[in-house]
């Protein structure tokens, strides 16, 4: 029942997104702009993997910060949140939005990574390890961003507040994931990254459980 309802919330978000292109168009442009700024900042120089990994995560972080809040802000701006509250419980709303944000982030990150590799000549020596770290890092990123998006959708000055609130919460994750992707791109074996992957998984689980428990206080008036 819960899973079915969350799937319905996800499907509703997806189809309304495909109809209106509320987020996708601006985010695609955002990704393009960010990547080209990186390209012009580097120029023709061949930068080290250590710097490039940092630049990659700047692009990923700011794309998710500018995009992930939309799911909740949209409900408040278009005043559809009351209808959503009437139709289903808070647990299925947060789960559905989480799934939607995950799909959005994974597709955007695939695009960012692809463009980034093409433009900056970024060499990844241990690709499977890199992708595993990226996936688990993104899971944590999405779950923390989603609950904070729910918080700020009720506040004034939503746009500026979002990075301010999410950065300190995301920083433990970001430090770990930047370090792990850097190591993987330099060719460190996957089993040596196991400690970092454990941290990423536990971060994801802790934050998701906390958001599932707390979301009803944010959502219900």
């Amino acid at each position, binding site marked *: 029942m819960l899973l079915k309802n969350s799937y319905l919330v996800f499907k509703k978000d997806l189809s309304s997104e495909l109809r209106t292109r509320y987020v996708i168009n601006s985010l695609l442009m955002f990704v393009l702009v960010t990547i080209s700024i990186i390209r012009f900042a580097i120029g023709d120089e061949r930068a080290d993997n250590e710097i490039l990994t940092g630049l990659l995560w700047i692009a990923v972080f700011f794309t998710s910060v500018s995009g992930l809040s939309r799911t909740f802000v949209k409900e408040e701006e278009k005043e559809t949140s009351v209808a959503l509250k009437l139709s289903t419980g808070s647990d299925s709303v947060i789960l559905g939005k989480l799934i939607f944000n995950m799909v959005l982030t994974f597709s955007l990150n695939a695009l960012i990574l692809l463009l980034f590799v093409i433009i900056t000549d970024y060499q990844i020596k241990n690709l499977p390890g890199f992708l595993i770290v990226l996936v688990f890092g993104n899971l944590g990123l999405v779950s*923390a961003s989603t*609950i*904070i998006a729910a*918080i*700020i959708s*009720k*506040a*004034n*000055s939503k746009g500026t*507040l979002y990075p*301010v*609130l999410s*950065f*300190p*919460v995301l*920083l*433990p*994750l970001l*430090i*770990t994931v930047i*370090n792990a992707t850097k190591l993987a791109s330099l060719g460190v074996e996957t089993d040596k990254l196991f*400690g*970092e992957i454990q*941290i990423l998984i*536990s*971060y994801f689980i*802790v*934050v998701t459980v*906390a*958001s599932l428990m*707390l979301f009803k*206080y*944010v959502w219900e008036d």
Partner: protein
Amino acid sequence: MNKIFTSLVFLIISGVIVLGLALPIPNIPALGDKARVLYFHVPMSWISVLAFFMSMWYSIRYLKTKDHDYDIRSYSCAQLGFLFCILATATGSLWAKFSWGSFWNWDPRQTSIFILLLIYGAYFALRSAIDSEDQRAKLSSVYAIIAAVTVPFFVFIMPRIVESLHPDPIINTQGKINMDSSMLTVFISALTGFTMLYLWMLNLKIRVEKINYNKLSINE
């Protein structure tokens, strides 16, 4: 009762300041007289963490009971915690200048206190961006809890990434306290004195905030 408590706080803190500066310090390699910062820096850091978790505790109580009293307590804890966090950063940074050669060099301990400052800042930014009293209380409580569950990750992550140069007479792997008895006495009294000072300030702060809250509801 309150008078006794206040004079006790006054006595202990004056004693700590005088003894902390005047008492001879045993010869500690590479630290020497700089070790005196311990009497002030460690209590400040301890209180900023204590206030952070007290704020989280009152946030949980608020969400459970919806009693506005707890929100006022949580907010007061956060305000005092922020003050002590700034003091801990300043004393630590001064000490770092004379021991490590620069005020700020992103040592893991410095990074973690920086995060704590950021979280406090974000919490106040969130509170000032919400107009309705109930919404503000609810949302800032949720944020305080979310922030508090992610903070412990620093304890496990930071040592994995970079070696810290921070001396650890209190929290070390052997679980021993490496201090001679006169230092230990001053240190323990500093810890007690500043914690009592914090509790006394917290009591005042909560009372002031309550008066403010009642005044607001009368005006409305």
